[in-house]
């Protein structure tokens, strides 16, 4: 198991004193841990618990409550296609199916080369530009199956 780097330890310390209670720093610290590899392992939770001086169970219950924390490895490009109402009306199912086929994955799966995960997600608040997807932190809007494929291929290079 790799020890936390200094910059992570500094970040944790800073966040722990940023809010009125130390627990409020759990979400920001989980984001920080996820930054590097795209997901958070049980070992990292244990380390974070020690660094924050908070029982691991409290960190775990927070992590598991929120959908943005990945408890399993995801592809380098985490493609999240909104499949809520306005996006569905504007072709998000066809879009998701096309991407799954193109990158040879099932929804939620990591591609065999570890580069892409395609998942269906709930409303991302971009309904006027449907269909849309989020890749890692960025939004991509007004998509067609072809334009989305191009974006992913370009980012993957």
């Amino acid at each position, binding site marked *: 198991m790799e020890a936390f780097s200094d910059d992570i330890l500094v970040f944790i310390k800073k966040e722990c004193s940023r*809010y009125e209670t130390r627990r409020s720093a759990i979400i920001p610290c989980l*984001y920080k841990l996820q930054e590097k590899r795209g997901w958070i392992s049980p070992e990292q939770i244990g380390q974070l618990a020690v660094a924050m001086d908070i029982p691991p169970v409290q960190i775990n219950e*927070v992590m598991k409550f*929120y*959908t943005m924390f990945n408890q399993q490895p995801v592809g380098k490009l985490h493609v999240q296609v909104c499949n*809520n109402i306005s996006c*569905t009306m504007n072709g998000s199912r066809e879009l998701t199916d096309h991407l799954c086929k193109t990158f040879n994955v099932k929804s939620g799966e990591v591609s065999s080369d570890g580069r892409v995960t395609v998942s269906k997600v709930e409303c991302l608040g971009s309904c*006027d530009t449907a269909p849309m997807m989020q890749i890692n932190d960025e939004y991509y809007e007004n998509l067609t199956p072809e334009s989305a494929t191009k974006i992913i291929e370009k980012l993957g290079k």
Partner: protein
Amino acid sequence: MAEVKIITEHYDKDEFISLEGYKKFDGYKMLKKAFKMSPQQIIDEVKSSGLRGRGGAGFPTGVKWGFLPDNGEERYLLCNADEGEPGTFKDRKMMERAPHQLIEGMIISAFAVNSHKGYIYIRGEYSYAAKVLEQAIKEAYDAGLLGKNILDSGFDFDLDIYRGAGAYICGEETGMISSLEGLKGQPKLKPPFPAIKGYLGKPTIVNNVETLASVIYILRDGVDGYRKYGTEKSAGTKLFSVSGNINKPGTYEVPLGYPLMDLINNECGGLKPGRKLKAVIPGGSSAPVLTAEECQKANMDYESLAQLGSMLGSGAVIIIDDSNCMVDMLNVIMHFYHHESCGQCTPCREGTGWLHKVVSSISSGTGRLQDIDLVDEVASRMMGRTICALSDAAAMPARAFIQKFRNEFEFYVREGRSKVKGVTDAQL
């Protein structure tokens, strides 16, 4: 009537995003005015303006502020930017196009309610908006607009951002407070309301992004000026997020009481050629759906929509044309609420699961006729029995879809396929 751009007047200008640009268009001028007023005067103005919460519940803002106990306890002002109601995106636009407007609205509101610490709780997915806000907060601190003794007024206010991490329920104010406290974002039993016991047990005001920004224009235009638009009980303008099957989806600011069909046909450029209006969800996915016929007489204000058995909600208007299958649409909505139920109340945890299961069985062609009534029966028992409104938010659309489009559900059960040509079995 047409669009009235009060809040969104300068949203098309990129320079409005920066402090310098915002100031050019009278930014922070109302903050200076506020500091010359007494906090009570501001609260009275907001009360008289008739401003109602723009997040979804529509509770009068000034009245909410008035609930704060006068016990000398520290108070918190939280901005609810956890915009998650499907169909809603106006707060994102506001934060991305006018971060200083929100900050100014928050400082004025904090001064009015005598709070010295505020947070903007923003949904995790809005990382770009969060970056824009972070930059704006930094600019505001550097310019002495946040921190100690703001503009030599003697008033201190610190503001920070807190990012959620993907949970619809955190848009519910007590769920949001739990989340900010570092817990699972589960709502808390009310009363006590947050104004009495909120963040860390301290008196807390939670207001939506648009609500806080509106306060600026109430001070600018005065009560009469603000009430020039809207209706007696639904005052002012409102931002509507319009999406679905429509030519020009987007965010539109119109006076409350604006006719729905005008919004669709004038501002939004109408439907695609050859398409007919089938239904509209007028206030986010939890608002009961309106039939095309009901849309003809619908005005976009709290009372008119309540009269039609629906609600204004967050102002998310979802336009559904005749190419959509209502069974399929309901399945998408039920999947969402099942996914987002926080699980602490049995009627919601079990009910949302059952609704999704039954609707999904109908939409996969294996439903029975009695399942249609089962949906209504399950939904009817989910209402008013839980800690927060998510359970009702799932039950309301289920009941309205079944009631108003029953023939589509019956057709699906009888024939094992959608009544709408080209729609195949749901894939969710």
